[in-house]
């Protein structure tokens, strides 16, 4: 196994935990979100739902670090995918979405986070509720489910502002129509294309009840998005009968500058 870049030669007790990732390709997902495909030799593996810290270094040594969820499933090995949403006033995300190109190298630390994770062995049924770029770790779970051939019943309820802002649209639609594929339900909160027959409001208790129904034994829910969505959905799921310990949450979104 390759070592993370490090300073063990200098006599520190542990090697530096930063991995070098080479950008293999960049892929715009929506007007605001871009996927970076990375090659990370020696990557130790991760679980769907985990994230990494990405470190940037300016030529005078100034550094900035932010966390991004992994979009790729463990089955992709040393090939990782990060999907980054561009925050208008962000220090790091505009660089990752606008500047980075194939051949660049980034530094990664991780995988990080041991709670908001799902493995096929954990079972279900699985209810995934995402808002905006909160869909990213949920996509890693759906990709892991597909890669392992899992037949755990799964449903994704995904809230986006508009049709154009749905990340992974083509792949989600493909997954949904595959044998044993997950159910995928969108709600478009700000604008809808002509002829849209789906939901057109923020996720609420009635929508969750229609989509999820009462939780079956073993039901697991993962909720990721902006704080208000996560607070409301988690609370509504408890009202529906989900056990608190079976509702896992993660917050996304701008945290100021």
């Amino acid at each position, binding site marked *: 196994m390759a070592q993370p*870049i490090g*300073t063990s030669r200098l006599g520190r007790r*542990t090697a*530096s*935990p*930063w991995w*070098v990732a080479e950008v293999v390709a960049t892929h715009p997902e929506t007007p605001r979100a871009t996927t970076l495909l990375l090659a990370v030799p020696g990557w130790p593996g991760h679980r769907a739902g985990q994230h990494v*810290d990405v*470190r*940037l*270094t*300016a*030529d005078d*040594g*100034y*550094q*900035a*670090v*932010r*966390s991004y969820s992994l979009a790729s499933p463990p089955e992709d090995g040393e090939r990782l995918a990060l999907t980054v949403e561009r925050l208008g006033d962000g*220090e790091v995300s505009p*660089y990752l979405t606008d*500047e980075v190109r194939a051949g*660049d*190298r*980034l*530094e990664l*630390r991780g995988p*990080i*986070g*041991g*709670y*908001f994770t799902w493995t096929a062995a954990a079972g279900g049924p699985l209810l995934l509720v995402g808002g905006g770029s909160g869909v990213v770790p949920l996509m890693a779970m759906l990709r892991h489910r597909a890669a392992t051939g899992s037949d755990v019943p799964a449903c994704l309820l995904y809230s986006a502002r508009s049709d154009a802002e749905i990340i992974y649209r083509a792949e989600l639609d493909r997954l949904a129509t595959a044998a044993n594929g997950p159910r995928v339900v969108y709600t478009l909160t700000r604008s809808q294309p002509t002829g849209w027959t789906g939901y057109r409001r923020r996720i609420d208790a009635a929508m969750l009840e229609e989509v999820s129904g009462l939780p079956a034994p073993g039901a697991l829910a993962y909720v990721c998005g902006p*704080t208000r969505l*996560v*607070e409301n959905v*988690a*609370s509504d*799921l*408890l009202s529906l009968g989900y056990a*608190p*310990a079976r*509702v*896992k*949450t*993660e*917050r996304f979104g*701008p*945290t*100021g*500058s």
Partner: protein
Amino acid sequence: MAGGIISRGFHGRRRPPAEASRLPPGQYLTRDFPVLSAGPTPHPPLDRWDFVIKGEVAAPRRWTWQEFRALPSERITTDIHCVTRWSKLDTVWEGVALDTLLAGVGTAADYVVAFCDGGYTTNLPLADLTAGQAWVAFAYDGAPLAPEHGGPARLLVPHLYFWKSAKWVRGLELVSDDRPGFWESLGYHNHGDPWHEQRYWGD
């Protein structure tokens, strides 16, 4: 942080020295108050809320909400630092000092496990909770602490990363042997000093 591969074309956003000197390594400043928690927000009714100190103590203690709120409290202005890398300066809280709650308890234990509604736990050395370093806070910015920020009451230990400032805290268990809490069992550092950047296992 040291070393690092130069990121072609990255310039970053440097802070004025007065602000930068208050930011631990690897942190950035936010004006928001982000919410981070692993599960649903509990809403315990206050008439059934209590705060207890138990474990290896000579005299276990218990306060109802009314008794707790009748204790002397302090206004605390402090910077807070989240392991997810945001820091927030000059936050204003009101709370009861742990020194007040621990007075007269009597213990030989060196460690504390804080426990919470919702099942969350975090562990700390007792020495990090005494001598004016920690509070049980019930107000933020002049208003009762909001549920998503840990209300009705949360631990406030601002010299450690903020996951140690357990939301929805209901008590402390004093123990002789250190016992990793929730995040401490899931890859996060056992102590969590932001000025030494103790974020994850192995830091």
